[in-house]
């Protein structure tokens, strides 16, 4: 067996013989025969990974944009381009994938007209059975709350209590959150995260309540019309109480330009009725999680500014309206979507445990964050729930339940 170990050089002669032996018609073959050979380090391929790319990523690679793997030690890794987040999984195949650096394809081999067989040594870099598969997903922002909660802003007076080491600036946050930078930036505003002195701070629920009620109180105090909210005036009135950056974020989160303008051309604003009402509902529910429907609606009505009319449909994602058969009353039960588990299966399990049958309207706010570009709410429901018709209304229930 010793001769086998010696480096074997394939000769054209050998190739010819084999062709004959294989009963191939040599004239049918192109001239170039690639002699495949393992590289001397073909067994050391652990440092080489195959990463599947979609067109967006391919483009990014081609343009030299940097891609990043993100995740802490124990998290499953995401791949981020500048503005997209991808879920990364290792796929294993039973086929062996031979990575061949300088392989010629058929088009490249059939050019010359010579009859002489040309041998070309081609090295196989290694054999692979796994590759990374990517699929676009939503940025994983749930962590944002947890990360920032310990350093949440609770008013100027409480600043001294905040541990300086728990404060996050942008660089630190980027390391932590599995999202592309563009997506993270976008998320900061929607999550009401405020840049205070270069640190990114979330607002505590109490502070948000406090600040928002101060802002809303101005409406009555100044007898503003609904769509004639003066931002500058509001700010100047509240400057003492609410820091500038916080006010800016809060105001823009709840108010939008109404289209009207002041005399000086500055635009006037109106508060988003739904957003405000929803938030007030949260405040109410935080105080008492279970309420009778009528009592709750009344309290809610009182709590909101006079110009606003709360609707129970806005409670989606915050609370459930259920009929308590025992007490024979309609009840509103606090059920915030944010508290639900992240995993799809666990989420549905939890949902159906809470309530057996859901209409699509009811369930949407609770599963909306699970949707991706590929699967919408309906897709999720088709896959994870079972639909049934009752009195002409389509209900979704657990797939495995009886």
């Amino acid at each position, binding site marked *: 067996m010793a001769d086998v170990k010696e480096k074997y050089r394939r000769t054209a002669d050998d190739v010819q013989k084999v*062709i004959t032996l294989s009963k191939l018609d040599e004239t049918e073959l192109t001239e170039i025969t690639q002699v495949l050979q393992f590289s001397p380090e073909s067994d050391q391929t652990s440092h080489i990974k195959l990463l599947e790319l979609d067109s967006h990523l391919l483009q990014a690679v081609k343009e030299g944009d940097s891609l990043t793997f*993100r995740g802490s030690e124990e998290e499953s890794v995401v791949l981020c381009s500048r503005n997209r987040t991808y879920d990364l999984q290792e796929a294993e195949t039973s086929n062996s994938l031979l*990575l061949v650096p300088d392989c010629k394809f058929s088009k490249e081999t059939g050019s010359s007209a010579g009859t002489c067989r040309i041998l070309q040594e081609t090295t196989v870099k290694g054999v692979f059975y796994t590759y990374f598969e990517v699929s676009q997903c939503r940025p994983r922002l749930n962590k944002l709350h947890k990360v920032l909660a310990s350093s949440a802003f609770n008013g100027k007076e409480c600043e001294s209590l905040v541990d300086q080491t728990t404060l996050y600036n942008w660089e630190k946050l980027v390391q932590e959150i599995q999202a592309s930078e563009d997506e993270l930036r976008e998320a900061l505003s929607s999550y009401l995260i405020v840049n205070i002195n270069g640190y990114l701070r979330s607002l505590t629920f109490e502070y948000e309540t406090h600040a928002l009620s101060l802002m809303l109180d101005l409406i009555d105090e100044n007898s503003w019309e609904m769509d004639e909210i003066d931002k500058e005036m509001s700010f100047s009135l509240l400057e003492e109480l609410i820091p500038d950056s916080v006010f800016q974020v809060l105001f823009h989160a709840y108010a939008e330009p109404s289209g009207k303008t002041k005399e000086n051309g500055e635009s006037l604003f109106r508060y988003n009725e739904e957003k405000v009402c929803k938030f007030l509902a949260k405040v109410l529910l935080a105080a008492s999680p279970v309420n009778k429907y009528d009592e709750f609606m009344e309290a809610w009505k009182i709590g909101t500014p006079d110009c606003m009319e709360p609707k129970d449909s806005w409670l989606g994602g915050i609370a459930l309206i259920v009929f308590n058969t025992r007490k024979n009353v309609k009840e509103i039960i606090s059920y915030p979507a944010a508290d639900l588990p992240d995993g799809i299966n666990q989420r549905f399990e939890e949902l159906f445990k809470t309530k057996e049958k859901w209409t699509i309207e009811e369930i949407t706010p609770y599963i909306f964050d699970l949707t991706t570009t590929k699967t919408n709410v309906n897709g999720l429901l088709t896959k994870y729930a079972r639909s049934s018709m009752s009195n002409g209304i389509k209900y979704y229930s657990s797939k495995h339940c009886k």
Partner: protein
Amino acid sequence: MIIRIKKDGEDTNEWAIIELQGDLESRTNQSLNDQFIGDLHYTKTGTPILIVGHHILYGKEVSLDKPFAVLEKIHYNENDQVVDKSMSDSRTRTEYTVRAIVKKKLVFRVRPKPIIANVPKMV
């Protein structure tokens, strides 16, 4: 934790993948390093033919829907110097470099045909 994937140089190499339904194994349980595998021919119609040992395999050329990037892991120490893999520790930084893009592969899926070597001579 962020691990960056950098691009090496301006243009990307294009490599190929040969996908075999089956495994290449050594008869003598030796390492495959540096071993001769077989001959890869193309017919004039573009069908790749691979002869491995006593087997002849017919395949086809496929363009990949999702191309592969070939990433190579590189460890850097604090001074941004490339270090050997074995030297890596907590202070080293890992980065990946895109070595090549694979857009096409040769797939050999059908059952290989044996080459009968010792056909008795015709008398």
